[in-house]
């Protein structure tokens, strides 16, 4: 099965980021599974008509984040996600996400109490969807 990437120009999201987002999303929704192969940098560049360096940038980010792995002479594959961030770095990345969500919610006049309830409900849904076992030990 071949996974189809799509990109759009004129977006607020840079093309390399559109590609990494799509891989993350495809893995999260099961469209891509561990062991699936991605096209080579050159092949994807020519298919999407973008500079190969853009694809290389996306693949290098995905490799850094432990989602894909290049195997010499064989290609690029989805691998089991490893924990690659230090605790400190993970927190650093989490904080702006929380700030953005809370800021928007406050602007929509939600009370802190309402937010806590909403957050817990969402969290339950996510952990159920993942089979009840959260990723981190």
């Amino acid at each position, binding site marked *: 099965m071949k996974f189809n990437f799509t990109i759009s120009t*004129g977006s607020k999201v*840079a*093309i390399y980021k559109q590609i990494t987002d799509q891989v993350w999303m495809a893995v999260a929704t099961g469209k891509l599974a561990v062991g699936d192969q991605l096209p080579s940098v050159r092949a994807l*560049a*020519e298919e999407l*008509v973008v*500079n190969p360096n*853009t694809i290389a940038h996306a693949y290098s980010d995905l490799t850094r984040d432990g989602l894909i792995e290049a195997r010499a002479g064989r290609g690029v594959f989805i691998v089991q996600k490893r924990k690659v961030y230090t605790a400190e770095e993970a927190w650093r990345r989490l904080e702006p996400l929380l700030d953005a969500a809370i800021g928007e919610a406050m*602007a929509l006049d939600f009370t802190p109490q309402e937010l806590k309830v909403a957050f817990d409900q969402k969290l339950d849904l996510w952990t159920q969807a993942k089979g009840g076992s959260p990723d981190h030990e």
Partner: protein
Amino acid sequence: MNEQPVICTRDLTRYFGGKPAVEGLNLEVPRGSVFAFLGRNGSGKTTTIRMLLGLMQPTRGGGTILGHNICALPTAARARIGYLTEEHQLYGWMNVKECGDFQSRFYPRWNEKVFRGVVGHFHLRMTARVKDLSRGERAGLCLGLTLAPEPELLILDDPTLGLDPVACRSLVESMVYLTRRSDRTIFFSSHQLADVERVADYIAILDHSVLRACCPLETFRNSVQQVRLRFPGAPPPLPEIPGLLQAFRAEGELRLTCVHYNGATETALRALAPEQLELVPLSLEDAFISYLGDRGEKSFILSETEAEL
């Protein structure tokens, strides 16, 4: 990067009757890059390209192309450069094959396979007369004539000008294909920011004859950002903000477009005591228009060195 740039100019300047067309241009184009040369109509792009190719003498300053002085470019070096002009000048009475045969005599390294490949990509028949070709087909033929000598530096002056979307895409596809040879440099001017976003890894921006940016495309995108400030009532008057490009004032909201947004900018903005401060990324087109728009200050220049700070 310690390798010598393919194009390097110092203080390159050209006046037409006392008016500057290009003023003090310091440009560096790295080998192997796809380099987009941007700017509004009449900002000096074509004049720059003509000086780079030795087709026009600079009033002041100079530069090198493939390591040779642009004012004394040897024929052998010229043969390593492919130049596609805006106008696509061809002899109307020739057919496609005759154009190729004619051009090939000037180039010892002519590759007929490349010529036929490009011409085929644009669906041209070898027997078609030039005068009967559409604009897109002429562009395809010119591209074939430019690429067949396998130039290591390709200079394209607004290659997609006046082409329909399908012909445009064919041209951009050819550019991506050309990066297969990793030491080949493509320097192109364009107004099509969607194409630039697809293929460019570096950009330079000329504005009213002066260079305002010369950096990786991504650096440019990361450097121009919009910040939205929300206030309970009317927004306070704006103090001096470094790198401010544009400011929009609305009911309870200030929307600022800034270049080099950093900690200092944020401190200055936080001092206005907004209820909320939010950074919003911009599309390449919006960033470009803000950057060249009429409002805001213009004393800065984006360069690679600055971006590393």
